[in-house]
């Protein structure tokens, strides 16, 4: 009986702690869903701010946190309410489906959406269209005609730039390996193909020895990259297509004592990658503009609410950064820790 009581108290404490933390997180953002649910689709009612749910592909990675920061900034600047949510992994199609369904049910002024699987979301997008809710895509966007605009990085062009830099740094010939986060998401496919196609077209002497998928899991990516480097002692370069992948490559190079012998090129930022570029372990990386992606999608949503016409594609840009420009005014604001 006594252990029972102790246990219940412990469980209750856990629940209270979890709830308190869970409530604290949304409260810190600019969200106010309760008053926003009744916001008219036109957004002309000045009493209630227009409500724009932002549904992303995730929230755990630093990249999504930066997108979130950008969308919150836009919400503050443009006087609208937003909520930011996303499934735990990019494989959770069903979970995102439910999030989008719930968002449409609230009849918001507009929706910002980055689909984990575009085709699966079509019925809901059709529903939003009939209800007159404008959809703005961001990041991987939505593979359909329904979104009025999409704020995204041109990942194919960005990965092609990475390929050019890699070829330049290894003297336009030799073996290169590629580590990608997954083989099904839009960003995974575009970055892989953008890199491989550019190599095939412009740098025929560069041989791609391996393309592997580490699910963005730092530990798995480390062990994968180690095996690839062991199997190819003459490997000259390694491209990691997202933050988790490149951290794996950097760990592998470090653990095998091959720092400086392999040209490592990454994607996005994060503290470990920034440190590696400063120390010279990583040659450089492509950065997107995650804050810009978040900002531009909310901005486009507000324009759509006001009936302005939009360009279909809002290119949020990408940049190459290395030791020389990492602290520059152009690059520094784009990097997240």
């Amino acid at each position, binding site marked *: 009986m006594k252990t029972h009581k102790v246990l219940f108290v412990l*469980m209750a404490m*856990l629940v209270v702690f979890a709830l308190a933390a869970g409530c604290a997180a949304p409260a810190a953002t600019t969200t106010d869903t309760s008053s926003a649910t009744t916001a008219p689709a036109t957004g002309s009612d000045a009493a209630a701010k227009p409500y724009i749910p932002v549904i992303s592909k995730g929230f755990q990675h630093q990249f999504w946190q930066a997108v979130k920061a950008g969308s919150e900034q836009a919400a503050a600047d443009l006087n609208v309410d937003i909520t930011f949510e996303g499934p735990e992994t990019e494989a959770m199609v069903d979970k995102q489906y439910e999030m989008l369904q719930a968002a449409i049910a609230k009849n918001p002024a507009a929706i910002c959406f980055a689909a984990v699987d575009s085709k699966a979301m079509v019925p809901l997008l059709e529903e939003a269209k009939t209800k007159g809710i404008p959809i703005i895509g961001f990041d991987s966007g939505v593979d359909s005609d329904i979104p009025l605009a999409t704020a995204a990085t041109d990942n194919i062009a960005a990965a092609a730039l990475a390929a050019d830099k890699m070829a330049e740094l290894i003297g336009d010939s030799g073996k290169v390996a590629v580590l990608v986060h997954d083989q099904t998401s839009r960003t995974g496919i575009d970055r892989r193909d953008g890199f491989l196609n550019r190599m095939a077209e412009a740098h025929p002497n560069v041989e791609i020895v391996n393309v592997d998928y580490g699910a963005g899991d730092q*530990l798995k990516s480390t*062990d994968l990259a*180690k095996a690839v480097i*062991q*199997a190819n002692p003459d490997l000259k370069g390694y491209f990691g297509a997202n933050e988790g992948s490149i951290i794996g490559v950097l760990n592998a190079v470090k653990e095998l004592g091959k720092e400086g012998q392999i040209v490592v090129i990454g994607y996005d930022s994060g503290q470990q990658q920034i440190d590696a570029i400063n120390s010279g372990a990583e040659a450089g990386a492509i950065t997107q503009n995650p804050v810009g992606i978040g900002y531009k999608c909310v901005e486009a949503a507000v324009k759509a609410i006001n009936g302005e016409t939009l360009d279909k594609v809002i290119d949020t840009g990408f940049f190459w950064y290395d030791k020389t420009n990492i602290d520059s005014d152009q690059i520094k604001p784009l990097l997240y820790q």
Partner: protein
Amino acid sequence: MATTDAATAAPKKRSLLRADAAQKLLAFSALILIFIFFSLASPFFRTPDNISSILVATAVNGVLALGVTFVIITAGIDLSVGTVMTLSAVMTGVAVTNQGLPVPVGIVVGLLTGTTAGLLSGLMIARMKIPPFIATLGMMMIARGLSLVISGVKPIYFNDTPGFRDIMMGSVVGAVIPGFSVPNAVFILFGASLVAAFILGKTVLGRYAVAIGSNEEATRLSGVNVANWKTAIYALGGAFSGLAGVMIASRLNSAQPALGIGYELEAIAAVVIGGTSLSGGEGTILGTLIGALIISTLTNGLRILSVPQEWQMVITGVIVVLAVYLDIIRRRGR
């Protein structure tokens, strides 16, 4: 009558011993065969550096699997080991980086976090009678959520503590015997295995784990406080998850709060390949260690041969099913 009983009992006991030996031998020979195959297929596979890589890659999953072995021997299951590992890593990060406490304190915090989570799972199972699958599923989600909340959805780095990475990747042995710089990770794995084997084979806790798994009711009726021992076994499993948490944090020089999903299934796969029965009552630590080695050897070897990763999943899946099927055949033949 007594003589015939003894006569029939003696060969039965001998064949039982032989069968257990056969099972261990089977997993071990599978590992050797896989090793020989890859060694012939690629000269890069059998280099000392690569073998060291395989052992290091086994470390985290191996230690998780050690904890799961105890739980599965009681005919239970623990789905929370992966995210409890992550929570322990995060708590170590909070202690060492955010609070600036010494590394040994951080390690203790990690171990205690894992043990506490295991203890809670055990209490839910033993006292509240929640089925292990559900209780640990709940713990899996609770630990995952808490990792994210406590870390603020951000990795915690150990950059201010230069020695922290050396827990796994330094080489104490290399400092003593020059030229033999095997990373500590390997010795932590083997050390933890020895401790686990000792607990399972030589202590009351291990004996009762097997007894509970063989026949929980009979164990209870013979006066053993099953609820308490079960709770202790889940807490022990949690302690191994805590150790794995410290290990992964050291290896990655950071506590990554989003990691951990899927690790529980890989650990369970290692246990099952190693011949521990999901219906409880039997299992060995050596088997689990071999099971974990088989998984990481396959992963490494197929990468070295550049076999597409999709096939690697298929192959690992086939091996899990085969291992369990052979186990069933062995039982039927008994």
